[in-house]
């Protein structure tokens, strides 16, 4: 193996793949088969990049040659960059050797589109197939579904991959027309729909025949670019909800747009990556998936955007003060989960702990509840609670004063004296 050439390719093709934020390697249940290599289970982050993102998969493009010219993408046709392509065997060798040294959980393989979508998809599948059948590799494989690939290929891809994903990238159809005029919305949807239907079919069959082979056991995911087309938070979250509901997505990822081109349709080079906004969107995503909120409670026509200085749950609570205060010792799970400063971990501890005695402030603090936010919204076994009749803006002011978040300088209006 010519290590220098491989190194060069790896640098180019890893660099081009890094804007795909999905890194999860959990959700699959593939076991080690016949004393082969690897298994896939709970997901392990083997290291973290210097920007703080987890590295659990070898995330590379098969090639960064591309026939499309999407404005938001580094590998777009018109961009003058170094191009490279891996051979199938090279990807297989890299994956196996990295895996054996416990560097990675598996492979995340994406690609620029060369010749045609079907041709590209075929090559991706060939890598996965080789890993599974020739190397008896049972680690995690995440393949990109290439927009416009045929149903037959999507079916085959699911037989070898743990997860499949199509990035819809732009949350609104109008935005897509503007930035990626050669791509059609339907091209994104079609492979997604095929995979969803196959997953349902396989899980139905498994109920009858236990030995039904696996089909994309870790499901599907997608990604949206944030802050490239001036879309609102409502646009993003409603579209995310649509994908969760209608395509049974395991995850929707939000990726703050990193300026990479001088295209006039996009934010200019050097403008800041909207990391705080990204963070708020993920918080909202969690509220929808684990805390029992529905999207219209948080975002609607009157409130199309999330507030940047407070988290979305606090934002909701301040708009709905009529639900509070909540009695910690009596409220049900659903309502406990809606109190700002109480996460699901604390909810479970409260539910178990209160069976033994009524809980007071001291107990809550030790369980890890963020009392600086929660104290305005709860009563517990104590005579001491917030008696003043505070309105939403007062509570918000007091909470903001009591906390010192890492993003504080992003939203503080106060001028700094020394800077």
């Amino acid at each position, binding site marked *: *193996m010519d*290590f220098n050439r*491989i*190194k060069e390719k*790896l*640098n*180019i093709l*890893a*660099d081009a*793949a*890094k*804007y795909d934020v999905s890194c999860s390697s959990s959700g699959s249940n593939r*076991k*080690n088969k016949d*004393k*082969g*290599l*690897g*298994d896939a289970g709970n997901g*392990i*982050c*083997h*290291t*973290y*990049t*210097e*920007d*703080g*993102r*987890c*590295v659990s998969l*070898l*995330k590379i493009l098969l090639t960064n040659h591309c026939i499309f010219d999407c404005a938001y993408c580094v590998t777009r046709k018109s961009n003058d960059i170094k191009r490279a392509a891996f051979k199938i065997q090279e990807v297989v060798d*890299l994956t196996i*050797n*990295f895996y*054996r*040294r*416990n*560097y990675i959980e598996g492979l995340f393989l994406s690609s620029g589109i060369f010749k045609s979508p079907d041709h590209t998809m075929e090559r991706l599948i060939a890598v996965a197939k080789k890993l599974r059948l020739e190397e*008896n590799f049972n680690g995690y494989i995440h393949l990109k579904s290439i927009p416009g690939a045929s149903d037959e290929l999507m079916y085959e891809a699911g037989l070898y991959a743990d997860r499949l994903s199509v990035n819809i990238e732009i949350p609104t159809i109008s935005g897509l027309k503007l930035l990626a005029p050669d791509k059609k919305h339907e091209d994104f949807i079609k492979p997604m729909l095929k995979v969803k239907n196959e997953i349902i079919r396989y899980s139905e069959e498994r109920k009858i025949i236990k030995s039904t082979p696996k089909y994309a056991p870790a499901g599907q995911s997608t990604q949206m670019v944030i802050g490239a087309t001036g879309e609102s938070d409502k646009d993003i979250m409603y579209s995310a909800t649509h994908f969760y509901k209608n395509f049974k997505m395991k995850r929707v990822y939000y990726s703050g747009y*990193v*300026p990479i081109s001088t295209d006039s349709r996009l934010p200019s080079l050097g403008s800041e*990556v909207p*990391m705080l906004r990204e963070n708020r969107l993920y918080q909202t995503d969690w509220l929808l998936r684990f805390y029992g909120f529905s999207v219209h409670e948080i975002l609607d026509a009157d409130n199309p955007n999330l507030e940047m200085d407070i988290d979305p749950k606090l934002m909701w609570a301040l708009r709905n003060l009529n639900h509070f205060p909540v009695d910690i010792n009596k409220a049900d799970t659903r309502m406990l989960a809606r109190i700002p400063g109480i996460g699901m971990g604390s909810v479970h*501890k*409260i539910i*178990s*702990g*209160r*069976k*033994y*005695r009524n*809980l007071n402030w001291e*107990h809550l603090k*030790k*369980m890890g509840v963020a009392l600086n936010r929660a104290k305005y919204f709860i009563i517990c076994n104590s005579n001491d609670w917030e008696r003043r009749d505070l309105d939403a803006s007062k509570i918000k002011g007091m909470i903001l004063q009591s906390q010192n978040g*890492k993003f504080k300088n992003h939203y503080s209006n106060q001028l700094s004296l020394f800077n």
Partner: protein
Amino acid sequence: MNSIKTLVYDGSFNGFLTAVFIGFEQKLTHADIQKKGQLQSGLFAETETIFTNIEKAQRVWNGVRNKSSSAIKNIYFAFLSEQNNMEGLLYRYIQKLMGSTYKGATDYSDDCVLKINSLAQKVGREKHRMEAFVRFQLTKDEVYFANIEPDFDVLPLISKHFRNRYADQPWIIYDVKRKYGLYYDLQTVEIISLDLTDIHTNSLEKSAVFTDSEYEYQDLWNNYFKSTTIKSRINTKLHVQHVPKRYWKYLSEKKEAV
């Protein structure tokens, strides 16, 4: 007898469980259980040396497991934390479990339960970190070798994970702090102790023990690590939080940083 008594055990988990058994047998309300060799006896305390007895240990294990399976896991994990006074805390925890008023190990309004829980959580986190941060290097005799230096004694906990995953390659994971390791020979995992002349950190010098291509792959991995970083989003604080500096010397991707 209700006074404090010091029970000295051999440091093994079974030894500890035997001590718990003896403590219960003698109806000690407070048992000061200590490891042999680290003994600190009180002025008036009586000491008794415990001889590990598998049968008695088994009875304690089964007794706790019948009460709660999550509690038995917590106890084992907390034991591996090797923290000072962890034995006394565990004794109280087991007392509570076996007492009639407590229904389970879920009383999160109780200090002792919370402490054991958080100890077990810490050990669990270290276990997970070791599953992530082990870096095998291929030796010339075709064994994948890794040395580690975990905060807690987690080797017994990670054995199964590595056996299941790397079923088709012989490997050694060696704890340089506690001076023992695991060796998988394609059949079973054995506990070994090695006479390591040097610890294989990620130094820039190459060792003759490992294959030549080993260093090529480390180099590739190093390169991959760099090119997958997004420069406009650098967040060193978060990076160090996830990959604490004490592990860096064993991670080949942090070669230049050490």
